[in-house]
């Protein structure tokens, strides 16, 4: 088999949460392009219907299921619906997540409700999905889990508490999955997206010229799809508990502002 053939996902079913728009939709469409059937889930019916329709125009089967990932009953029902439709689920992409109420606030002003919503949305949801799906992945002899973390999962930012803690928790949760399920031929890895403003004109304007990003540009949603295909495919079968960061170089630095470039020749008496 050629190395490029290992990327093919024909005959597999992928469940992508938060696939109604944004990065989740981009990943769902590329998984479909690689041959997988797709279960598309989020809270907003018309958005998941739209993604599912796009998957079908690619010639793959698709099912849109409403889910609230902060509610484990809702998640269990989603997994049941997916299994009923496709028999088995081989690939789980825990992508649903993002900003929640009061995301950028000083710690002493964060009420319990906001804290729980942030952590439930960006950590517990992925945990519930894995908990519901892993037994059947073990039974079927293998699977792939792809969790979407964030630069905030490895570095901190001003007045960002629950998102940063939850996305960091997701990283070590993924390592725990790797430790426990590697023997069952299940690989759990992370994608870390950098700045992906989608088609939001304000965000695009703010990041114009790629300020603060070493490569000088933001990410395009479509760039995330191939990374997801790589992690869902047999090409990454020995990668486990690891992270694939698509972020234009920011994490390679981070001790001084972007573009910091001192020049300090050796003193004559030091050579």
């Amino acid at each position: 088999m050629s190395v490029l053939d290992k990327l093919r996902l024909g005959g597999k079913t992928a469940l992508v949460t938060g696939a109604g728009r944004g990065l989740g939709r981009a990943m769902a469409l590329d998984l479909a392009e690689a041959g997988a059937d797709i279960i598309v889930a989020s809270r907003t019916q018309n958005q998941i219907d739209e993604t599912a329709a796009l998957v079908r125009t690619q010639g793959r089967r698709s099912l849109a299921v409403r889910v609230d990932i902060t509610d484990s009953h809702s998640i269990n029902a989603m997994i049941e619906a997916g299994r009923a439709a496709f028999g088995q689920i081989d690939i789980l992409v825990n992508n649903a997540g993002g900003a929640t109420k009061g995301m950028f606030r000083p710690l002493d002003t964060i009420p319990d409700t906001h804290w729980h919503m942030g952590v439930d949305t960006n950590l517990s949801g992925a945990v519930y999905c894995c908990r519901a799906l892993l037994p059947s992945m073990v039974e079927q002899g293998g699977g792939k889990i792809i969790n979407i973390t964030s630069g905030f999962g490895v570095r901190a930012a001003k007045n960002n508490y629950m998102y940063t803690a939850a996305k960091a928790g997701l990283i070590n949760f993924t390592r725990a999955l790797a430790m426990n399920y590697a023997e069952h031929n299940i690989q759990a890895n992370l994608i870390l997206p950098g700045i992906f403003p989608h088609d939001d004109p304000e965000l695009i304007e703010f990041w114009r010229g790629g300020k603060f990003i070493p490569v000088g540009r933001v990410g395009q949603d479509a760039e995330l799809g191939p990374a997801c295909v790589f992690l869902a495919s047999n090409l990454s079968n020995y990668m486990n508990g690891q992270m694939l960061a698509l972020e234009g170089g920011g994490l390679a630095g981070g001790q001084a502002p972007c573009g910091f470039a001192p020049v300090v020749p050796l003193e004559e008496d030091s050579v």
Partner: protein
Amino acid sequence: MSLAAFSLADKNALVLGASSAIGRAAACALAEAGADVAVGSTLATPREQEAVLTCRDAIQSQGRKSLARTIDAANEADVQALVEQTHSELGTLDILVNAHDLPFAKPLRDISSKEWCRVLEVNLTGVYFACRAAADPMLAQHSGRIINIVSLLGERGMINGSAYCAAQGGVLNLTRALALEWARSGITVNAVGAGWTEGMGLLKDTAVQEQLRRYLPQKRLAQPSEVGEAAVYLASDVAGFITGQTVWLEGGALSHL
């Protein structure tokens, strides 16, 4: 996206250290993905010459162009000449894979300064030579992919590993620094992190291999192809937003407490 987006057709690559198991696997995988691939050895020895010629033949038998040169990866002139030859015979240099590897493990007090310097020169300084030589064509065409192969010892320590760990850790952090330096020049600089892999220089002893199989979450060592093939992804057009990163293929080794 179609899967053709991962293809390396019309790209030219140079793999240093194609005499090692992982280097050879990377070279063959790049060729399988459509690239023409020049190969160099780690050491200028008859055994390594044999290895790179075999690798060249394997690439050519896939219908790709190749050339092989027996070099010492720590020799600046050797490395420069191979980069130039690749550029002139294949036409461009789009992908550089630094897979050259001189395995070494000894207690620190037993390491002679000659050994220390040699290990650092081949494993670390050789990467600097290759990156610098490749920068000319890559900066001129405003595009390029540099992929450094490191092992778990670039990230974690090991008894008797001081020299080797220092060199590999050096390569990892050089990867980050260079990624930033060339971030706006169209060149991405990344690493492929190899877990414990069949055929690795440090794993000649089968008892050691057994010990690792028991320890590793995935309960097996990597095949060289599983590591080498990751270079295809990083070398492809779809990986353009990834730079300064290490893609680890390590069977969960780094997740272990």
